[in-house]
């Protein structure tokens, strides 16, 4: 039944993609269609591009661990990601984009500051690092398919990648507005149903909140600063820094400099459409991340109550059907006596697998979401939906996630394709005619390579990061933070600061990128340890200690880039008056 609805959905998407493609075939047809883009379509398209499986499965799962403090990210998603993005950035971006005939984010920055280097550099950063974000979107979709059909993760990943590849080959990157709007509508229905069901199942809004407040965090979480699922973590604790700096601020602010979102502002007829889109966009985002984070946190109430008698494995604590068959315990001075009778030669520091060669032990005892999900953050939302909702809703939610993933992926592939083709390749080739002839090939090769890299990352990331790491949330945060550090000061300067120079922006972008990259490789604990370069070069996992190892790169790279941009601009040559006048024509009036 699920497969049938997936096919129906794919056929509708393909049909809408075909309609969009037909519209773009002739430039005049396109202009008619393009100019008629309704603000409702634009807002849903923007929202569907903005919100992916990363937000729903990844960050929703993170809310299952961190609690409802994640709602500050929803607030930023709406206030910064919609209100400020559309009004403060969008309107000027649209006008300046037309004045400079810019079609990509790197092109806008490059032409504004009359620097092909800026365009090439931004293009290559997007091409090299966006696959990380693409990979976590793939992981989000594959994790849900894995849980829904109880199949291997790798099978789910290949299955979903094939769907995406067919979509791309069939022209899914063309005329994406209508398909995105359709996908946005499915997402809105799916998420609205999710919050209604969640509150209904748990006895209403206040009762479910009270029950969630009553849950006590287990000692390992409390030790890291967890104060409960309806409270913020202890100020300054590891959990607080991760939640506030990486999850909330990194993504909440980083959204302003997302290349695939910036270009959306140019697709509407006038700023009037952007005003109208704000109304729809704000409500849409509340329905997406607000619902995902609230439901993710509330899933703890449902799993602990275990009202439907879900079977767990007593040894691992996970739901029986997803029990990993593994339960690692680290031996220390306190617990060594307990295990000695069974494991004679153990010593403190050893790790033993309690589940090795021991069959599952069934129990119906309730547990926290993260335990029920077998320790995998990304399994929380899929398991919650699968176990607590009616079957038809699981199908609707599956379509919701497919829609969320495909709408974001199509815009990501679009951004990466143009980044390598138009922003990099076309800029380094002197013979423009020959370059244009080869542009189709280069774009397609670029997209092919990025799909491949994304899939490889989507396969290896869950293997590299051990359980409980919220890899989707971290991967998204890293990319958003990198964009904020590298592009945001340049973007703000482009739209608002006439005195900023080409040299200032080049220095700012390079310093922002370098600092963010350095922080990632040598300071940020989980990432530096996974990459291993710091250990290899300096013999220690990170160069600094806590709390620095928990602080998102954006907190260091963004101020650095901003200061460097401003200071260098003070001492370098201004852009010509004429150029500035051309860029700002009709802006700020």
């Amino acid at each position: 039944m699920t497969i049938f609805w997936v096919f129906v959905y794919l056929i509708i998407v393909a049909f809408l993609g075909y309609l969009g493609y037909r519209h773009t075939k002739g430039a005049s047809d396109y202009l008619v269609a393009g100019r008629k883009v309704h603000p409702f379509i634009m807002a849903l398209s923007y929202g569907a591009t903005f919100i992916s499986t990363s937000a729903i499965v990844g960050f929703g799962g993170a809310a299952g661990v961190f609690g409802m403090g994640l709602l500050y990210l929803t607030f930023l998603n709406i206030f910064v990601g919609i209100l400020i993005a559309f009004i403060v950035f969008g309107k000027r971006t649209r006008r300046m984009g037309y004045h400079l005939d810019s079609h990509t984010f790197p092109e806008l920055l490059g032409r504004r500051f009359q620097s092909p280097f800026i365009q090439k550099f931004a293009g290559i950063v997007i091409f090299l690092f966006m696959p990380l974000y693409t990979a976590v979107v793939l992981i989000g979709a594959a994790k849900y398919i894995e849980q829904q059909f109880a199949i291997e993760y790798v099978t789910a990943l290949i299955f979903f990648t094939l769907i995406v590849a067919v979509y791309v080959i069939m022209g899914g990157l063309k005329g994406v507005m209508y398909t995105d709007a359709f996908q946005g509508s499915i997402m809105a229905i799916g998420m609205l149903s999710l919050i209604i069901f969640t509150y209904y199942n748990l006895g209403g809004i206040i009762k479910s909140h009270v029950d969630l407040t009553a849950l006590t965090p287990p000692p390992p979480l409390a030790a890291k600063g967890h104060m409960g699922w309806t409270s913020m973590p202890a100020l300054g604790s590891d959990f607080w820094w991760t939640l506030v700096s990486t999850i909330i601020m990194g993504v909440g602010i980083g959204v302003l400099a997302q290349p695939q979102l910036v270009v959306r502002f140019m697709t509407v007829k006038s700023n009037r459409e952007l005003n109208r889109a704000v109304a729809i966009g704000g409500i849409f985002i509340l329905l997406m991340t607000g619902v995902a984070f609230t439901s993710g946190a509330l899933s703890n109430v449902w799993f602990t109550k275990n009202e439907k008698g879900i079977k767990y494995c007593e040894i691992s604590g996970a739901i029986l059907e997803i029990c990993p068959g593994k339960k690692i315990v680290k031996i220390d001075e306190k617990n060594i006596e307990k295990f000695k009778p069974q494991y004679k030669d153990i010593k403190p520091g050893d790790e033993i697998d309690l589940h090795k060669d021991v069959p599952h032990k069934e129990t119906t005892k309730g547990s926290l979401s993260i335990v029920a999900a077998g320790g995998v953050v990304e399994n929380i939302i899929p398991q919650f939906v699968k176990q607590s909702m009616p079957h038809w809703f699981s199908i609707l939610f599956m379509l919701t996630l497919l829609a969320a993933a495909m709408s974001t992926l199509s815009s990501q592939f679009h951004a990466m394709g143009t980044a390598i083709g138009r922003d990099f390749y076309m800029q380094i080739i002197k013979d423009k005619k020959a370059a244009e002839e080869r542009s189709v090939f280069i774009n397609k090769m670029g997209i092919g390579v990025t799909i491949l890299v994304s899939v490889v990352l989507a396969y290896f990331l869950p293997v590299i990061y051990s359980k409980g790491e919220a890899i989707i949330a971290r991967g998204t945060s890293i990319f958003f933070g990198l964009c904020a550090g590298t592009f945001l000061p340049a973007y703000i300067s482009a739209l608002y600061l006439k005195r900023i120079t080409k040299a200032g922006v080049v220095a700012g972008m390079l310093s922002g990128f370098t600092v963010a990259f350095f922080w990632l490789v040598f300071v940020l604990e989980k990432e530096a340890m996974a990459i291993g370069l710091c250990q290899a070069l300096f013999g220690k996992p990170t160069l600094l200690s806590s709390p620095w190892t928990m602080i998102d790169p954006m907190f260091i790279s963004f101020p650095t880039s901003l200061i460097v941009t401003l200071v260098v601009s003070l001492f370098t040559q201004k852009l010509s008056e004429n150029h500035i006048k051309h860029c700002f024509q009709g802006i700020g009036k």
Partner: protein
Amino acid sequence: MLGLGDVWVFMAYLLCVLSAILCAVYGFVKWNDDEEPYTDEAKRWAEEEAEIEKTL
């Protein structure tokens, strides 16, 4: 506080709803503002965009 355990989380819950309402109010109040004529520049941009889509 709607059953929430911490005033900060209650504020987050409230801010989410209020910011969505603010977006809705802004959009509806300014529903007919900022209309612009369709310029040649915008038309050229759309033509070029259609060309780029063909290369993808």
